[in-house]
């Protein structure tokens, strides 16, 4: 018996993990081994690879901005889900509160939009 409904997830996860581990190691066991330095270079369509700066490549700040905006909206969603699920118990009072909350987040959204935070040059 597995009395806890959460435990079967780990059974599925374990099977998937074992399969993934076997797949990852399989090529080392059965694949051919023919050394060639060019094979180990980074692929850049045949030209010599661009040397990477220490600590990984650089990328535009826009990705950080997107990630931060995502967190703002994700938190909004986190607050909306419990309200939506227990809507019947909370009634009209909670509806008005949620509308106030959404309008507050929309103000932030409008601000970000006006300041060009949503533009991807």
């Amino acid at each position: 018996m597995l009395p806890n409904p959460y435990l079967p997830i780990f059974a599925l996860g374990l099977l998937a993990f074992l399969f993934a581990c076997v797949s990852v190691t399989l090529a080392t066991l059965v694949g051919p081994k023919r050394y060639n330095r060019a094979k180990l270079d980074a692929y850049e369509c045949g030209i010599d690879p661009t040397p990477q700066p220490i600590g990984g490549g650089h990328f535009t700040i826009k990705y950080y901005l997107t990630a931060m905006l995502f967190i703002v909206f994700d938190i909004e969603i986190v607050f909306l889900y419990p309200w939506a699920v227990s809507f019947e118990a909370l009634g009209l009072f909670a509806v008005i509160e949620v509308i106030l909350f959404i309008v507050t987040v929309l103000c932030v959204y409008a601000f970000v939009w006006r300041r060009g935070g949503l533009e991807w040059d």
Partner: protein
Amino acid sequence: MNELTPTTPSPIAATEETLLWFGHDPLWLVILKVVGIFVILVLVVLFTIWLERRVVGRMQQRIGPNRTGPFGLLQSLMDGFKLAFKEEIFPTAADKAVYIIAPILSVVPAYMAWAVIPFGPEVSIFGQATPLQLTDFPVAVLYILAIASIGIYGIVLAGWASGSTYPLLGGLRSSAQMISYEIAMGLSFVAVFLFAGTMSTSSIVNGQVDLWFGLLVLPSFLIYATAMIGETNRAPFDLPEAESELVGGFHTEYSTMKFALFFLAEYINMVTVSAVAVTLFLGGWRAPFPISMWSGANEGWFPMIWFFLKIFIFIFVFIWLRGTLPRFRYDQFMRFGWKVLIPISVLWILIIAIIRGVSDEYGLTATPLAITAGFILTVAVLWILGRNVKRRRVKNLAENTIPEKFKPNSGGFPVPPLPGQEYRPARRTVVADVGAATDAGTTSVSEEVRGG
């Protein structure tokens, strides 16, 4: 249920009574279900890859793979075997540990999301009554969202650990794209929870006996259907793998089964988002309308047929889109996600919350109002979007008219004449054309041809 309710209030609400099905399976049944889900997923993915290649082939006036097995059905399986026997390559610039972990981190969550997908109602397996679903709990949809987000780590780490420029950019693009469209996706679920009153998948399917949520909250369904294509990095939103810009995207440096794992995860995710769409919006495993009049349609093993039929309709749409639409530009794609999908989702949540709250307060049923409002909002949004597209097209045409006079060096580099422009060769070219050498060359060639 009856023994519990009179004295102590049950911890499970009336909307979530299907949750009582779960947590009673013996260990052998859990193992059987786990292996079953694993095998079904592998088969569905192999079939989907074959279907995609065949259908896209037909759409492009080709045949597609038809040599390996009947109708080429074994093609994807054989491709998998071939990848298993390829040489293992670790790029010198790669961070080896993360490079190996990334594909595992990508494929394991893809499988785990299927733990809470309902395939069917309660059936009897070797005398044991059990639902056709591995498990379920009150936060099942939240769990799907959470576990799907872990898959993003696999992609971004693969891009970062490869130590190469294209994968890095592909991985970043992929993660930015997935988190951008995850907001629209998450917001589209709110309306469903509002009417279902639960996040458990089996209960949501149970709540759609009379009316599919896809009809009840039409805008949410359409927003989800759009967001799920962005979420799975599929055409026309396949920017992380834009071949002309980024080669293969985050898996450029991957070979052997490690590449196959990414491929597998991508296709499982495609099936997963389709299954979630079916479960939350299209009545899950319940039979569609004309078939549902037959009382046996929703009992026993039959529901699995309806479930997979619905899933493959979505998969066909995925393939169809890939065969039809050109790829978005990255700025267009981000603008669509942040400036169109998100505001519409929020607006729709406000509308549906007011409708539901007011009709509950006055003891009315919210259903007809919600359907009408959803329909009106959908038509209005589509009309506005269509009008904007048309305006932009007219504006582009007005800006990009072809000038009458042909300038051979406009923009600082030589260009050919556009349609409608007259090509006047420069003086030097004219001299070369009428020169004796060219004439002689042409004659001799034609003589050779005649002689041969």
